């Protein structure tokens, strides 16, 4: 019974971390049909911001929830203005330019910060479940994921910007004709997506050892989740994280985490054969 509870929490954690690392990418993809290939490096930037600032004496929670999202979000706005906007609508060019950005960021990070192998102790102690102990931080990550998903839902559903964003997503030309400044909607979307990526990188910092190439350990899972979810950002992320998170976690229990990742990939490839536009290409199409 205790063992079942631990497994349940682990699966929930896998789903939550998958949702966290993918949401920023999914929001940008859903709005602009742009896949940001530098997404992993946005997460890396959030991680380094948290690590370096908290080592420099800043309060960990301030670094995690304020500094990292703000910095990465602003960086995202600059990227949108300088690279994405100039290539808008040209898919190959956008893919290649953001991928170039990814390599550039890895290079710059490794010559400036270097292979800074400082890991931090996960705060919040541990919780006893029968004979097992589970880190308190696991519950914290699950809680953050729920709050972030809830926050995005609230923002899209109930705010004025959410209304404009949904309109622009459905029909940009019509939205523009009705007086929506779609350029600004895209910029703000990119800010929000990047900030969420920064937040995800920051929240996961205590669990990983941050390095310039940490992006690679996130990016495969984030790509698969976004592709599996499809273009409707929020329901896509939730449904795909739930599906892939459970699959990879169960396989990882039975074998190793790497095989879990392979299972994730195979599941995604089969999924896109059946649902080429992802889960939300057929289900939850009118969702958020």
């Amino acid at each position, binding site marked *: 019974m205790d063992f079942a509870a631990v497994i349940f929490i682990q699966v929930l954690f896998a789903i939550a971390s998958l949702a966290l690392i993918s949401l920023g990418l999914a929001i940008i993809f859903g709005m602009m049909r742009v896949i940001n290939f530098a997404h992993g490096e946005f997460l890396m930037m959030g991680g380094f911001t948290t690590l370096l600032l908290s080592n420099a004496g800043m309060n960990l929670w301030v670094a995690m929830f304020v500094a990292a999202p703000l910095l990465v979000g602003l960086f995202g706005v600059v990227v949108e203005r300088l690279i994405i906007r100039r290539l808008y609508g040209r*898919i190959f060019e956008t893919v290649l330019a953001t*991928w*170039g950005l990814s390599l*550039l960021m890895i290079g710059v990070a490794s010559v400036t910060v270097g292979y800074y192998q400082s890991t931090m102790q996960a705060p919040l102690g541990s919780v006893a479940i029968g004979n097992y102990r589970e880190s308190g931080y696991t519950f914290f990550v699950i809680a953050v994921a729920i709050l972030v998903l809830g926050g995005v839902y609230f923002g899209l559903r109930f705010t004025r910007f959410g209304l404009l964003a949904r309109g622009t997503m459905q029909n940009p030309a019509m939205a523009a004709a009705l007086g929506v400044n779609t350029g600004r909607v895209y910029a703000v979307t990119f800010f929000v997506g990047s900030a969420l990526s920064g937040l995800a990188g920051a929240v996961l910092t205590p669990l990983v050892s941050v390095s310039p190439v940490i992006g*690679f350990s996130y990016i495969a899972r984030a790509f*698969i989740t976004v592709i599996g979810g499809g273009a409707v950002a929020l329901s896509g992320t939730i449904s795909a994280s739930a599906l892939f998170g459970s699959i990879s976690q169960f396989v990882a229990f039975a074998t190793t985490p*790497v095989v879990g990742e392979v299972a994730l*990939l195979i599941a995604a*490839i089969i999924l*896109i054969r059946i649902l080429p536009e992802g889960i939300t290409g057929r289900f939850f199409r009118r969702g958020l």
Partner: protein
Amino acid sequence: MSALKRHPSLVVMFALALIFVFIVPQVTELYIINDMTVFAVMATLALSLALVWGFGGILSLGQSVFFGIGGYVYAITVLNTGESTIPILLGVVVPMAFAAVLGYFMFYGRISDIYLAVITLTVSLIFYHLIVSTSGGQWRIGKSPIGGYNGIPGLPPINVPGDPSARLGFEGKYYLSIIVLFLTYFGIRWLLATRFGRVAVSIRENEARTELIGYDARAYKLALYAIGAGVAGLAGVLYANWGGFISPVVFNIFFTAQIIVWVMVGGLGTLVGPMLAAVAIQYLVTQLGAAATSEIKAGLTIFGMRLDLKDFLDSNIILGVIFIVFKQFIPKGIVPFIRDWFSERRTHGRRQAESGSPAE
């Protein structure tokens, strides 16, 4: 002379092939021959993506996966059998089969271009993680360890079919690689001139229209993708043969990014461009790698952080800058850029002649 007029590029390439096979090895030092062998292998790899992306319109970001599978399959089987003929064949066939399976799901699912780019890149990322995780003695196939991050060293060179004692030396490897490169080039030229090749190009130009004429675009794309994978696998075999060594670095993201850069810089829709770009960039990276370890003192200090110029010769930074600059300023690549420039001058000159300026 009429052949030169009708197919100037074929004649020039044939002459180059003769020069590289018969003259260059006679007048060049052995260590340069050794470098040229790997350049030829990389140029072959560049051709595989030039075919798939440049002529098929399939943006495969994971072309290095097929190269790596080719190399690994060759390495594992050659260590187990000790004879290289069947391993070479497997090094071509296995990547093709893998591409056919992966391609079936991608092309028959009719996923969008951006999904295809993402999936192919993800496949290469996960292959890298998978191979790196196989360090330790329990991971072996027959007599061959997989070796995790350290890869598989000590591969015997390719031998004459049926005679394991007649192995290729440095020069033999060079001849083999350069001949394969030129045969691949002429083979692709031939393929593109066939009915199959023309349909593939027309799918790149307009998929819907080609399907309306009655061709099944999915099958053509799948076949082209598998052929490209076979070429990449063959290049992988020759790569493992060149160094006697294969490691997961070939599945690494920078390696796959390099292939994209070769095709992008050389010019999409050309074959010579990517070949030349592969050689030039490979050479540049080697030279910069040497420069980065040398004594360059330039640099600056910002916020107490010392930034040395030579650190910025980092190959990631260089690749990243090439990517972004080319996408913004020379999106078509160098060979088409030069071709456009020449044809513009020619039409410009003709226009001037037609307007009949009396000054001339």
